[in-house]
């Protein structure tokens, strides 16, 4: 899995994010439309597509999309 694939999956799951709007360095919680519901969608995506469990603590400790990607990759 490359970070480009990861971003593509997230943008596919979260309709509110226009294609190409996420970058590795994007602070995802600072996206204006971001909500706790999106955190759940991301957690569900990682469970079903990568069989990786992300906790609430993981979501809080990660700031950028790249942080998340690195964490998910380390658990695959």
């Amino acid at each position: 899995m490359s970070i480009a694939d990861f971003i593509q999956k997230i943008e596919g799951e979260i309709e509110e994010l226009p294609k190409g709007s996420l970058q590795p360095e994007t602070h995802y919680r600072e996206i204006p439309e971001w909500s706790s519901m999106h955190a759940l969608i991301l957690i569900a995506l990682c469970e079903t597509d990568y069989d990786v469990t992300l906790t609430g603590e993981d979501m809080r400790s990660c700031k950028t999309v790249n942080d998340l990607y690195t964490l998910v990759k380390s658990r695959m």
Partner: protein
Amino acid sequence: MAFLETRNVRLRGISACVPARKEYNRDYDWITEDERKLLIKTTGIACRHVAREGTTTSDLCTIAAEKLLNELGWKKEEIDLVVFVTQSRDYFLPSTALILHQKLGLSKNCAAFDMGLGCSGYVYGLSTVAAYMSGGSMKKALLLAGDISTVSVNKRDKSTYPLFGDCGTATALEYDAAAGPMVFNLQSDGTGYEAIIMPDGCLKQLYNDASYVEHEVEKGVIRSKRNLWLNGLDVFNFSVREAPPNITAVMNYSNRTEADYDYLVMHQANLLMNETIRKKLKIPAEKVPYSLADYGNTSSASIPLTIVSQLAERAKQPARWLFSGFGVGLSWGCVSVETDQLVCPPVIETDA
């Protein structure tokens, strides 16, 4: 592993009763229109039935039970056992099963008691009734399960208010030496007791002035200690971690695979969580019914309500089922059960 195998007990019928009054999440103006759309899409919950003040869960279960007894042609004096599963009792004491016993006009030769469980409660309730009956002394029993949750949630808490609906159900079980086995796998993790909790109102903290003080926990989440609190992320992690292996263990114990079952009926928590569980189990979507859109999360009523509202016709034919409940406690369980000619009258709506 807490496996339990019971024999000689057959599910004969299921009925469900909801308040007629509906609330639509598209009208939930505590959050923005965009948030509402995302909420409905993600949770799968468009509409919920909400009880009037003063309506009790026992009112709904009484109506459901009367209907079911009538459909089955059962006499009230034949009922040997009533088990009521709820987290919304009529009184601190006595147990609400006795109120139901009185309302239904049952005989004195009938055992009646409550079980205090929520999302997992239907599976636990079935296990208890089946275990009592499998010896053959008790011939007919009613399992009544449901909750009125809408009195507990704060309208200004977006993490709970749009999720819950009210419902009471009745399930009829009968001793039958020809019935196939029921196989249960019952699990618990009390270390997670705070994940879903109403902090005040019982002996640990009786209601006091502070119970009613509302606090803003985060944007869109305002609640007091008399309200139901839900840690959505923790419950999500718990459910997708624990429910799939719990269900798989039941199939393995029964020497069956997913292909041997017609349906997996899950507790209706929310669409995102339930679909994540379904995908992890690799069970086709057509085998996993939902009632979330019309009723929301109805606690221990959600499994029987889903069967009655989605599969009443199909249930007349022979079917193999997995029922899976998971949540508050933390408590979870699954049962493998076979039915034939299951009687499911249409969902009743009441103005009571």
